């Protein structure tokens, strides 16, 4: 089933690229949801050997969270805002895409530099994961809205999740679930804060949050 995994990973990479290029928040949320659903399948495909149930549990959990719960949360926060639905980037979409391609190349390079000591389910695994982490970070840094930064965090998390799939069996289920729970709570709290921000500031441009800084001495 290697090629199935490959397909998923390609999907992951493609969604990342689309995210880099997309200008509408709603699309972005939809794409992240899709990504989450796709990754939900990964545990099943990645590791059949013996530990099926945990894999299923994990995949299902993450799929539900990232595919349905998070998007719902973010949409709610978005519905509250009277601000524009634009993503409002610091770095333009074209530039973002180009940078994205460069980053993809780099992540392949990195994968080559640190070859997995054993045969990974797919050669794409490490590069795709890294690329998605990079994408997440990029979205956080280069996009203006707080809500986009939450999206970026989720994407980054997806990347790490994908990398984690290389070694499901080494990570005890309990820990994985703990991780999942943490991420859930994190995104949940972030959602709440975005909600509050938007109520306090009547906009969710987190670049307006600059009251706390070191002025001139």
């Amino acid at each position: 089933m290697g090629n199935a995994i490959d397909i998923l990973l390609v999907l992951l990479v493609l969604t990342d690229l689309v995210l880099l290029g997309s200008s509408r928040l709603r699309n972005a949320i939809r794409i992240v949801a899709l990504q989450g659903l796709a990754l939900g399948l990964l545990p099943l495909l990645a590791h059949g050997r013996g530990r099926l149930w945990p894999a299923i549990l994990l995949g299902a959990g993450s799929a539900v969270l990232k595919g349905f719960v998070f998007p719902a949360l973010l949409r709610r926060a978005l519905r509250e805002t009277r601000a524009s639905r634009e993503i409002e980037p610091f770095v333009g979409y074209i530039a973002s895409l180009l940078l994205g391609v460069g980053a993809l190349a780099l992540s392949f390079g990195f994968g080559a530099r640190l070859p997995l000591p054993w045969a990974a389910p797919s050669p794409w695994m490490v590069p795709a994961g890294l690329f998605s982490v990079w994408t997440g970070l990029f979205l956080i840094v280069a996009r203006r809205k707080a809500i986009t930064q939450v999206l970026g965090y989720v994407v980054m998390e997806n990347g790490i999740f994908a990398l984690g799939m290389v070694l499901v069996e080494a990570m005890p289920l309990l820990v994985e679930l703990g991780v999942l729970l943490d991420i859930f709570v994190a995104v949940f709290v972030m959602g709440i804060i975005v909600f509050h921000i938007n109520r306090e500031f009547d906009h969710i441009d987190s670049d307006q949050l600059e009251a706390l800084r070191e002025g001139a001495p």
Partner: protein
Amino acid sequence: MIWALVFLPLASALASVLIRSDRIRRAMLVATAAAHSALTGICWIAPPAVAPGAWVGLDAAGRLFLGISSLLFLAVSVYVAHSLGRESRGRQTEEDTGAVFVNAPEAVFTACLLMFLSTMTLVVASRHLGLLWVAVEATTLATAPLIYFHRQPSSLEATWKYLLVCSVGIALALLGNFLIVVASASADGSGGTLLAPDLVARAAQLRAPWLKAAFVFLLVGYGTKMGLVPMHTWLPDAHSEAPSPVSALLSGALLNCAFLGILRAHSICAAAGLGDFSGTLLAGFGLLSMGVAAAFLANATDYKRMLAYSSVEHMGVLALGAGLGGVALYGAMLHAVNHSAVKAGLFLLAGNFLAAYRTKSIARVGGGARRLPASGLLWLLGLFAITGAPPFGTFASEFTILKAAFAQGRTAVAVVALAALAIAFAGMSKAFLGMSLGRAPEGETSAPEREAASAVWPALALLAVSLVLGLWIPHGLQAVLVQAAHLLGGGAP
């Protein structure tokens, strides 16, 4: 035993949401803290046995940091029980920004406080790096609402930055954990582990490049939480916006927890013969943090931010000590104790100043020693305690670290560190003297105020701890310090 330590606060956290009466809830908070300290004390006297494969267990380092956190929490809870009473119920105005706000419900506040304690306990007790990660992230989530207790824009901003920066950082740490698994797995990809003791035991077989990468991720990740420059950016905002007792806990306990995470990784590297690599990184970040923090301390304008930067500086001292290794590691352990006590005490005093003067601006506070006789005097003593002047404990620990630096022939390192400490002293002393000496600025009264015992005694006790440690280190503590230092690959004088 350990689970009791974890779940006791959790249970009372749930209870505090249900309890209606504030008085009872506050009493329960203090009681829980006391019980937690008592259990901790038992763990110190009779360390619970640890099964080889267990995920949780208290080694010397764990006991040390557990002791610090528990003691701090006890002091803070007493203070909180008082300061919550001091908080006004309805809408209030922040004098500096002029923002109008209300407080978060006290029940939520107390619950988060207790959850914070429980998660901290889990951090120091976990031997499994994955569990450690979960716990650390959990502390972030538990503390975020605490920072947003005063529901005003600036606090919200601080909370958002704290949450985002720390979550991203800690996510990187998770990646680091995965890399460790890869480093430890056998050729067919099986048998990877995250149990710190096993990793140390099998250090020889670990794959060096993966381990290096892992350490980098863990350092950046937990370093964000610990407040190493340049990942410290969330720290001054959070500390200045959070209620003072929360700042005390953040500086005194939370940063240490993150430091413990880094130390675990460092000890694995050291065991794997990468001690130079990780040590150099740690020492470098330590010096950088000390230097940059000193630069910010040199012209501080807001006294809570000043204390926050001072925390950054002292985290730098800890990292430097850990990085130098050997005896310096012992010094770092001792310094962790001293810094936590003093810094927490100072934040509590800052709370008293804030309550009296209703401003965080250094320039607008004066004559503290007249208006708040106890707090003002303690504030001055705290200055000397935090800047490493004998006879306070910080002197002993900093002396140990510097001596180690000189002894290893790293004179340049020692000189830079000394310079940073001197700059920091010059800056902080100017602020502290201006605040506590002289007369209040016009518009403020200098008339002495009656200070509540519960507002002063916790700080007094914490400063007293640091003073005692400067004159005499109890045998039990000494033993734990030495064990911890050896455990983490260091030595003791």
